[in-house]
């Protein structure tokens, strides 16, 4: 993404003025431009890393944030995370009123101690010290300071200007001092300035007077907009493991050292998988048989302890306990495939919407968060296996990890490659509706939906839920409003790409509204697309991530005595954001509407926002158009 964000920011300059804590946090000293649309303003932040040696890094942190209104309440919670590699040397906080006078001071003992929860792990050894400060009234300023000793760091905290939207920055300083042979690397993105070099060798970056970013729907994630500095060392030392991570290749070598030798399996399991694939000579089939065997035998449990955050359980352990996290399960699957002489590679990757390896030219921790398995197949597409899922089809790489860089890790070190990419045509949803229309406006109907690749995930919840839970989910997510769903069946479609087929029977009490002798029948009775209000002038770019095409066919069988009086004209819309086509025709007692809708992914400049909203509104209006049927003799 190379859209121009820097033009949006006022004066980002690397000044030689010494960064210093302001004399007063009085709120009326804040420049007006920073209060605009802001809930909170960072008055001053100073982050300083002092690398005394790779096993002894001191972090000093001070941050003062002025809370302007009650939306800034989150800033009253102060927390510092620590683990067995970190020791907290000092901890404190001070609260100032609107005039900048001290109203309360907090000491280390005021911070409570908790176990950290990440929301998905069974157990981690991360902990945190937490304090909720009392606020004398708004506006006020909260200042937080701490110092930690680190027995080794994997990465330095990224220096990201914006903590959130509606957050302005007055003065923000980041310093790293390291011995010349330490090998410090950095990368400035999104308009972050070059650092100054101080006489003692410290590198210093400064942000000054950055106005708050607004909350706008469909804007790119904060880390794509905010000026950010990534800092990483060439070598790391952590929990007894050390290595060179100056390039992706070297990081791969370090990671390989943690994996090596952990792929031994018990003889019984080796025998089992050999027998499993004995009946076929097709490699792809063998891989899928083994993948499915692994899916049935294991489940995902995340336990992250120290270097265990990077080193997987051995294959033997997974075989014994039947569980593991993404690293352990991928390594286990690799071992199973190795037992039948199929080579595969452990692949480190950034998964989900918000994480990916963004900088092939800058190696650091923090860009990846997941592990999958890469299985190249001769004369065919590479298979990328998601080993934590019991349901994922073998042949399809979901959009959790598709369309991005992965770091292959093997004895040669690390290599960046692209994962699978599915085209818009491949991500296809094909819907067919058949309605038996009644003269009172009601209808008995069937719905069939075939979804391929990314579109196969639309109804995948129904593969997991059962009974009433599944019925309730479908009733809520049915494509047509006010439908009474009677039955449904879901199954996978055997194809080169994953596919799911959903079949459902439903009725509607009011498909068409009856008024007098007329029935008004909506030609495409789908739930409308969400179309946000256009609001005022948009500041931020717009990002569309969907890359799908949807075709719908609506067949209305009319009873005797109901004649077609009017059908809407064909509609065709073409915009940079997507295309829409709808045509209606009448064949005897059958009324057929065909609809084609495609959305194009991309990042669009803010000026195009109202055109985009206009497009969605036009699509909704076209879908809602009515055919008129007459009740005849």
């Amino acid at each position, binding site marked *: 993404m190379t859209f121009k964000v820097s033009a949006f920011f006022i004066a980002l300059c690397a000044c030689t003025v010494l960064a210093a804590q302001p004399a007063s946090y009085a709120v009326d000293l804040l420049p007006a431009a920073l209060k605009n649309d802001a809930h909170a303003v960072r008055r001053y932040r100073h982050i300083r890393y002092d690398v005394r040696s790779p096993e002894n890094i001191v972090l000093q942190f001070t941050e003062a944030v002025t809370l302007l209104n009650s939306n800034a309440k989150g800033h009253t919670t102060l927390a510092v995370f620590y683990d067995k590699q970190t020791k907290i040397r000092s901890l404190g906080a001070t609260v100032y009123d609107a005039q900048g006078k001290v109203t309360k001071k907090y000491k280390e003992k005021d911070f409570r101690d908790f176990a950290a929860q990440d929301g998905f792990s069974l157990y981690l050894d991360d902990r945190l010290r937490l304090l909720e400060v009392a606020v004398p009234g708004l506006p006020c300023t909260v200042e937080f300071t701490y110092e930690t000793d680190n027995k080794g760091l994997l990465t330095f905290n990224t220096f990201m200007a914006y903590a959130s939207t509606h957050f302005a920055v007055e003065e923000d300083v980041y310093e790293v001092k390291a011995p010349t042979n330490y090998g410090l690397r950095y990368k400035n993105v999104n308009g972050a300035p070059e650092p100054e070099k101080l006489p003692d060798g410290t590198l210093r970056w400064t942000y000054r007077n950055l106005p708050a970013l607004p909350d706008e729907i469909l804007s790119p994630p904060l880390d794509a907009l905010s000026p950010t500095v990534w800092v990483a060392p060439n070598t790391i030392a952590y929990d007894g493991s050390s290595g060179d991570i100056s390039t992706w290749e070297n990081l791969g070598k370090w990671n390989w050292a943690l994996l090596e030798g952990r792929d031994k399996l018990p003889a019984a399991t080796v025998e089992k998988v050999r027998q499993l694939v004995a009946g076929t000579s097709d490699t792809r089939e063998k891989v899928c048989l083994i993948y499915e065997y692994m899916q049935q035998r294991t489940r995902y449990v995340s336990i992250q302890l120290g270097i265990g955050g990077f080193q997987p359980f051995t294959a033997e352990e997974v075989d014994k306990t039947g569980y593991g996290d993404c690293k352990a399960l991928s390594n286990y699957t690799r071992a199973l495939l190795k037992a039948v002489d199929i080579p595969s590679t452990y692949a480190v990757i950034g998964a989900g919407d918000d994480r990916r390896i963004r900088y092939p030219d800058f190696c650091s921790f923090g860009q990846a968060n997941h592990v999958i398995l890469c299985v190249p197949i001769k004369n065919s597409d590479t298979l990328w296996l998601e080993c934590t899922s019991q349901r994922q089809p073998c042949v399809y790489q979901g959009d959790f990890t598709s369309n991005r860089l992965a770091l292959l890790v093997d004895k040669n070190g690390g290599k960046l490659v692209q994962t699978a990419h599915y085209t818009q045509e491949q991500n296809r949803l094909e819907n067919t509706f058949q309605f038996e229309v009644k003269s009172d406006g009601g209808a008995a109907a069937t719905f069939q939906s075939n979804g391929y690749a990314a579109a196969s995930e639309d109804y995948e919840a129904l593969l997991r839920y059962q009974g009433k839970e599944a019925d309730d989910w479908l009733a809520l997510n049915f494509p047509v409003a006010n439908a009474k769903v009677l039955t449904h069946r879901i199954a996978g479609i055997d194809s080169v790409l994953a596919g799911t087929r959903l079949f459902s029977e439903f009725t509607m009490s009011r498909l068409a509204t009856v008024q007098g002798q007329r029935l008004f029948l909506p030609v495409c009775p789908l739930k409308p697309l969400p*179309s946000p209000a256009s609001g005022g002038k948009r500041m931020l770019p717009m990002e569309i991530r969907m890359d799908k095409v949807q075709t719908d066919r609506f067949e209305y069988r009319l009873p005797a005595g109901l004649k077609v009086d009017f059908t809407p004209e064909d509609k065709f819309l073409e915009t940079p954001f997507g295309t829409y086509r709808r045509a209606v025709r009448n064949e005897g007692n059958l009324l057929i509407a065909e609809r084609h809708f495609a959305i194009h992914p991309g990042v669009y400049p803010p000026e195009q926002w109202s055109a985009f909203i206009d497009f969605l509104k036009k699509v909704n209006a076209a879908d809602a158009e009515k055919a008129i049927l007459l009740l005849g003799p």
Partner: protein
Amino acid sequence: MTYASLTGALRLVLLLYLPFSLFSQKAPKFGKISPEELSLKACPFDASATAFYLFDNGETQLEGGAVIRLVTRRHFRVKVLQQEGAALADQKIVVYTPERDAETIEDLKAVAYNLENGKVVETKLDKSAIFKEKTSETLTTYKFAVPNVRAGTVFEVSYELRSSYYISIDPWIFQHDYPVQRSEYQVNIFQDFNYRRSLMGYHPVDVKEERGIRRMPMGSGMAELTEIIQNYTAVNVPAFRIEPYLYTDDNYRTAVRFDLKSVDPSNGFTVKVATDWGEVAGNLATNTHFGDFLKKKSPMKDQAATFKAIADPKQLMQQVFSHVQSYYSWNGDFSYLADEAPDEVYKSKKGNSAAINLSLVSLLREVGLDANPVVLSTRNNGRILPGQCSANLLDHTIAVAKIDTTLYYMDASDAFSSVNLLPPQNCNGTAIIVRKETYQAVELKQNQINGIHSHLNLTLDASGNVQGDGDLTFNDYGAWAKRWEIARAGSEKAFLEAWAGDKSGIEFSKSTIAPLDSNDMPLKIQLQGSFNGIVEQAGNLLLVSPWALDQEKENPFTSATRDYPVEFYYPTVKSSTVKLTIPQGYVVESLPKSLKVRLPDGSARFTCNVGQKDNVITLTSMVTVTRTLYTPEEYADLKSFYQTVVDKELEKIVLKKA
């Protein structure tokens, strides 16, 4: 038969030793798995279950020795049918572990059994794979994942919980998120401890009771305890599933609760338990964070002087309430005891719910009004059942003022509530007004309604464009809810944008909301704009969807059936009036027909009237729902009532060019 003194004297008496277990079936032994259990393919009473509890058994009794402990032994066994059900293998047990007298878990065991090639393979949970997490200063969580669990596995867990809080019996939950084939709980209650037992939820629970005498080591000798042995059994308990419009789910999950009523001191136990609310009130009167808080002079006594000038008591109360509500900000904690002393709360302008409302009571009293605190349990916390003194459930304090003979309730911790408009979470059955010498049990109900009234004037011109102006007025709970929505949106502007964005085809040229700073006034939104989106062309006809401002587009109830009641926050009265002026050159082809429907008991009504005079069409719609609780049996009627409203509001005004 005599009682042994529990304060030390030894008295060995030979007695009949009665087995203490009333288990109607022999309790399953750990490690003895039957082939039937392993080969089960489905839950016999829920075909869609991905896993279920074969049994969940518990036994609670006092055990002696150097110290007395309350010991609970639990043993449960699960059959996993499909992969999703393997999630039950991730277990956690939370125990209370303050610095002194921490509860402990002993003898935690878990084993998984799998059928492989006709043989049963056992996998034990390794002690090293049990993590003890220090969740906070007073809580510890034992976390573990039972190994080798997948579709077909049977696994079992057993452990012992030992607590020195031996008079406090934890509730036993029969109903979990997965079905339970058989849940059996036995509790040996020492005769001197009197509990009130409450059975919650819908599923039948069989209760048996017997008396018995048990010998127990005590100090350096033996004691005899006369006990009441209670056995609770529930079978084929369905999985508990959250449904929409269900806010107090803990009230419906089948469980048994034990609330200590009193302790007989004749054997040396000197535990003071409040036996009725009078005692609770008495204790609160001397509590540092409650009674003592109120004894101190209000830090706002200077402002009190200016308020005292107001003659009318109702106005005076209103002014005091508004002042306290806007002065303090709530820190998010519900509590019935204040977290700081009055001066501290006043200085920091922040406090928990009791701190703020006790400050309110203080100031009301200072200006001469008859005001008292009211203690209660909020909805999420569980319901205090009528006639029960469940002081352990108290989690909130609000205020009440009495003027003449009328009681006015208020909660200043909620930024948008007003006098006699309590946030719905407070309206949860029994609440206790604490007076200096006495108490009064009251039932807090939503006295007000959620009122929404809209007016819309639309003018259609010859080219099919529609201009409109109108307003919406939100009353009482309607205003309260909208003010919260505006606060959450961040600003008036953000709220209006989101609200307008919801209404497709409408562009507001002007819109205002007022008043925002006066909680007891209705909230009014006024707007003007183009409503072109409500008109569609179909051949030579124009179709107009008239309910532009607040149309019920979809039925809120989509599920076919319902297991638990439907809970609404408050009763609702919603009325809409639309006047549509059509231009010269157009005639009305058809109008939606007027309609009147109601539920059999009249608690929900819908009236729609449509009329025309010259070139003006007037439509009115009124929906009232007066009950806040509907039973599962009434669900079908309720769902169909809402469908009628949705269907009617979908109907169009059809115009034809003359």
